């Protein structure tokens, strides 16, 4: 595979965003082309071979979905990614319909909600991202919730981990040097069909970052370590757990009592 010289076409009417995304993509070793409108993008696509196109949905003139449909008309092999500012369900569905391979993508807000509501204590999580910094940040957050995630910097490593561990949830970056996230997800599912997967799209996508930051705040509000009420709520929760554990222990079920009190202890 000529993975390092894939041609990436970025389409966005916001010039600053386009440039910053392009810089990051170039650092990743892509051959980057940029277009500020759908028409410009189609012209570029007609002139040369494009492997991947990342298209903004909201543009004056031509909508992102229309651009994607037309790009696929020019080259049916093209991989496309639609950048949407804020989660519009209809849009997401339309995107899925356009490209069945996109089916596995979970909305990023859904992802954080899922993470926030998950009782992480008992779940083995695998994080795959080629960016060590992002990987570490994500791992740190999950550690805060009392879970020790497994991490992999590339797809090969991820598959090796998958084969030797029982993983319940895999969070995979879409763009990695050795394999695309979607392909990795397909392979992980072949190893264990029951694994839940999440695809993270967009390298340094500012919109994504904004969305994540917005969600981070609400995420921290939920646990709110700093504020008194958060602290108070935590004490109450841990009291409730301990009393339930004491109840189980007094009834003679020490095994489940210990599991309640300390889910990480075997």
């Amino acid at each position, binding site marked *: 595979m000529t993975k390092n010289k894939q041609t990436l076409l970025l389409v966005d009417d916001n010039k600053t965003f386009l440039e910053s995304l392009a810089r990051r993509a170039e650092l990743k070793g892509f051959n980057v082309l940029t277009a500020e409108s759908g028409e410009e993008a189609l012209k570029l696509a007609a002139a040369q071979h494009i492997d991947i196109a990342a298209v903004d949905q909201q543009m004056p003139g031509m909508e992102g979905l229309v651009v994607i449909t037309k790009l696929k008309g020019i080259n049916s092999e093209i991989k496309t990614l639609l950048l949407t500012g804020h989660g519009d369900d209809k849009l997401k569905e339309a995107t899925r319909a356009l490209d069945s391979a996109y089916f596995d993508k979970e909305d990023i807000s859904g992802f954080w909600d899922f993470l926030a509501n998950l009782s992480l204590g008992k779940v083995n999580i695998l994080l795959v991202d080629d960016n060590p910094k992002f990987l570490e940040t994500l791992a740190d957050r999950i550690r805060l919730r009392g879970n020790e995630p497994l991490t992999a910097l590339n797809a090969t490593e991820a598959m090796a981990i998958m084969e030797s561990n029982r993983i319940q949830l895999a969070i995979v970056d879409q763009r990695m040097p050795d394999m695309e996230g979607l392909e990795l997800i397909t392979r992980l599912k072949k190893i264990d069909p029951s694994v839940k997967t999440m695809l993270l799209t967009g390298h340094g996508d500012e919109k994504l970052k904004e969305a994540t930051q917005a969600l981070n705040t609400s995420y921290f509000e939920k646990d709110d370590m700093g504020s008194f009420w958060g602290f108070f709520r935590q004490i109450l929760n841990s009291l*409730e757990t301990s009393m339930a*554990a004491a109840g189980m*222990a*007094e*009834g003679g079920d020490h095994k489940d009592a210990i599991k309640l009190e300390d889910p990480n202890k075997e």
Partner: protein
Amino acid sequence: MNNISIGRTKGFLLSILILILTHPVSAFAADQAMLGGGDKPWWFWPLILFVFCFILGILAVMAGVGGGVLYVPLVSGFFPFHIDFVRGVGLMVALAGALAAGPGLLRRNLANLRLALPVALIASTFSILGAMLGLYLSALNPDIIQTCLGATIIGIAALLIFSKNSEKPVVTKQDAIGMALGLGGVYWDEGARENVEWKTHRTLLGLFMFILIGLIAGMFGLGAGWANVPVLNLLMGAPLKVSVATSKFLLSITDTSAAWIYMNRGCVIPLIGVPSIVGLMLGSLVGVKVLAIAKPKMIRYFVIVVLLFAGLKAMDKGLGLGLLG
């Protein structure tokens, strides 16, 4: 190995502590009047009771024996309180533990409502009758209750020694009543990584047993976990996890009914109740933390021996033999 020896040392220290604590108390108990403690200041007995109950809470959790069942025989045996007050507070102690554990057990889907409700209906009805019967008998002569309590406690100690709970009892065929009441369910076993389906059998016999359990719980103010769990687990065939959690939840219904009778008759004295409940709750919180570090088996046997001794003492006291001082 290391854990066990730590546990042994802890168990040994605790047993010494309990002996030191109970010894002077029992001496006072023999000498002094029913209530008051003579020349002692008013806070003396509540303080002793608090410390005693704190240790009792730790031991109850580590031994896997309910706090309520330990409380009544030990406090009635070693403290100078009238048996009615001890029974009344005993119910409140068991009730407090059950109410504190209930929300967590329900939220985690450990306690089964379908199983708890029909059983609770029977047990709480008869615990009211038991409480009334107990107070009637005690009005006739407190020694009757003391003797019956002693016999019951010895029975409980024997039950704790001989009954071996089964984690996943095998139920081949559910009976008609169990099916009609929908007594069954599924839970996820993390260790075995499988869904465990369970159902009950011998349901009618089990429900009848709860008549007896309700009566005893009400009459003596004992929590009824020691009886609930074997009946739900060994007789009716519910998994241990479900039995224990449901039993604990059940207590919060059963004991409420009986506690009302005792409260109504003025048998719940805050000066006894508050240090007992706070002590036991704090003790069980500490007990759970200790349990996560070490779980020495010998504590269970130690507690059963203490219970047996308390039962014998209660019988001795009730029959007026004076063999145990």
